[in-house]
């Protein structure tokens, strides 16, 4: 089958799955059966985590720039998109409804604010990235943390988006929607998760991606080979922030409530843990890590009484144990069954050789790439 036909087929399958899954999670369910709302919520949150993890992986895993500020960009995207929806989009939506009908109008408006959120987050990424990215590993980590905190404090000071109370909808004396509408459902979240994976995958497997990896491996050597490291680093940072913004926008329209307490640096650290657990140079790893780290705390809630209060201790101990035993994460730098591009592995000394514990490296023809991508999206949808 020609490639583009395969792509269209893949697209159709993904969309069908998303719609089916969404109905299953919704009020009516599929044929009278539905997924408990609690699980549905967890799955949606996992989808958002996937977007965050995969995008952070681009800058931290592939380019080697340690950023603990991801929650800050998520906040920027969330607040700016929700701000738009609450205060400025009502009129537009009504006029569009007259033109194309309610659902389409709503979707267009939502798409619009998501893109707006992504843009603002990208700009924030630019502002933060340009000065910070010339710093080395550990400093960069602290600086990004600092920027994220500053962003959070600034948002906390803006009363129009709720201040210390949180943002549910319009704040008098301004006019606007009373409550943030729940535009985001699984179709949107799952869809964007797939888009993120595909985009990051394509970047990584392109010339730009190779440049990024070379920067991770040895920045001086890359510079010496003529790669404009600053430009590439900033580019990766901006793209990654834009996706964090998208995740934030989806989050805001899913939860219908925003508060800066959800964007503290513990959130950024959670995302770091996701990609560390999964393997920092691997998209599959990021997805796996996102799923595990989002679901694990919920599973730990089932612990009996006394142990319940030790949940977070178990959580942190787990992180330490992983760092001691398998610091490259579950997937290392490998993808799920795919290695037609030999990736230079960032292997710490004393680590086990690649392939020993991982998935066998199979040679796949280039055209199978798209199928793999779509199927990866499917499994985790």
């Amino acid at each position: 089958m020609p490639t583009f036909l395969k792509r269209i087929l893949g697209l159709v399958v993904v969309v069908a799955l998303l719609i089916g899954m969404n109905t299953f999670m919704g009020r009516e369910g599929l044929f009278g059966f539905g997924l408990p709302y609690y699980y549905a919520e967890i799955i949606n949150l996992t989808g958002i985590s996937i977007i965050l993890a995969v995008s952070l992986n681009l800058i931290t895993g592939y380019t080697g720039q340690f950023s603990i500020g991801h929650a800050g960009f998520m906040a920027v995207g969330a607040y700016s998109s929700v701000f738009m929806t609450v205060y400025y989009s009502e009129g537009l939506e009504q006029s569009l409804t007259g033109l194309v009908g309610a659902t389409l109008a709503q979707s267009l408006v939502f798409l619009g604010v998501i893109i707006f959120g992504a843009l603002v987050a990208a700009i924030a990424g630019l502002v933060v990235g340009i000065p910070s990215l010339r710093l080395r590993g550990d400093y960069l980590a602290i600086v990004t943390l600092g920027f994220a905190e500053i962003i959070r404090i600034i948002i906390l000071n803006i009363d129009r988006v709720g201040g210390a109370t949180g943002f549910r909808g319009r704040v008098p004396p301004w006019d606007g929607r009373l409550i943030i509408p729940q535009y985001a459902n699984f179709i949107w979240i799952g869809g964007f998760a797939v888009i993120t994976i595909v985009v990051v995958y394509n970047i990584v497997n392109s010339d730009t991606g190779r440049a990024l990896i070379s920067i991770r491996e040895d920045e001086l050597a890359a510079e010496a080979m003529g790669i404009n490291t600053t430009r590439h680093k900033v580019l990766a940072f901006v793209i990654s922030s834009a996706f964090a913004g998208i995740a934030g926008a989806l989050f805001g329209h899913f939860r219908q409530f925003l508060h800066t307490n959800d964007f503290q640096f513990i959130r950024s650290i959670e995302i770091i843990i996701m990609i560390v657990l999964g393997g920092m140079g691997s998209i599959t790893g990021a997805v796996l890590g996102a799923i595990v780290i989002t679901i694990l705390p919920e599973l730990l809630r089932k612990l009996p009484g006394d142990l319940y209060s030790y949940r977070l201790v178990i959580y942190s101990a787990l992180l330490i144990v992983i760092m001691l035993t398998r610091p490259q994460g579950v997937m290392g730098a490998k993808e799920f069954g795919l290695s037609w591009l030999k990736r230079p592995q960032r292997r710490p000394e004393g680590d086990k050789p690649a392939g020993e514990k991982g998935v066998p490296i199979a040679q796949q023809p280039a055209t199978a790439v798209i199928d793999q991508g779509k199927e990866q999206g499917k499994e985790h949808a």
Partner: protein
Amino acid sequence: MKRTLFALFLITTLLTALACERRGNATNGSGTGPIVVGYYGDLSGRTSSFGQSTKNGAEMAADEINKAGGIDGRTIQIIVEDDQGEPNKAATVVTKLINQDKVMAILGEVASSNSLAAAPKAQAAKVPMISPSSTNPAVTQVGDYIFRVCFIDPFQGEVMAKFAANNLKAKHAAILYDFNSDYSRGLFEFFKRSFTSLGGQIVLEKSYTQGDRDFSGQLTAIRSANPDVIYVPGYYGEVGVISNQTKQLGIKAPLLGGDGWDAPQLWQLGGASLNGNYISNHYSVDDPSPAIQKFVADYKARYNISPDALAALGYDSMKVLADAIKRAGSTENTKLRDAIAQTKDFPGVTGKISIDKDRNAVKPAVVLKLENSKFVYETTIAPEGSTPPATSSAPASGASTAGAPAPPAKAASPTN
């Protein structure tokens, strides 16, 4: 490779099939069996001392009720969930409580921001929720299933402003508030509004963040502004130290505060420097009334520490819920909702509780003076529009409801 994918696909489908449930309306609250109540709060994060205190109060209340035979023979079973102080997680755990644990009512949360995130879930699922201590007016506006048993910000802020202007004859006030706390900011806003409308002047506003250790910068600036009183509507952890540092800097003006001061650790942190300050509160732990003293003694015996205001509110929220269940005769949600809404003059340890038409609690505030590690009764300030009653808090509902939530006459509450 393709086989592994297929296997994964099968497993996922199987899990999904196992996990699914039938769609249709399930009414919570069958007639028999234990009464399942959900409690959610911060049990491990920055504000976990509040969540734990409140939980202690609620659990003690439930135990008392169960020991006395339960409600119509049914025992209360509390399911506790930790939201780590994050609004996102608050919404998730409430969904879990409603969906998985099939709770009939929910108690929570302490912080208004977490309540605001979770209340829509309770409202949508038509499960009554009673907040023990969220003071932001917006919380109960979420819907008719959301209640609270505490003051709302407009009221408490107003009370202290009145006291400062009328009783202490203060003309200039400085404010030092906790910027990160919605509670503190709410009180600050309403105090400012009331105080200025009574003719006073706010000479300086400074803020700090919960967790700050040093306030000398703000206090030195306040000292230069020379206020008659300083309003510090924060929590005891910082207030105790602030009081101390105030005396160290030689500031003579008394400090005024709210119920967030009320905790046994306050005295340990502030010591003698607290003498001469005033707070607004629902009640006083040193109130000699037997009901309150019994509560304090039982709590001390069970948890080894004196109860703070939050524990008392947690206790009352459970008791109010139990009382409503008894009056409703069932845990069916519409009946329960109506019964809670009709609560009148319920004798809680935090005062006589009546629920008004906005689902907020109406009770008078007492102003207490801090003296020698005790809260000493100073005066009672009643809601606007009614004469200050001697002890009880429930004048004719018409008069009092005009005062406590957003009185249309005053521009006290913006979010209506």
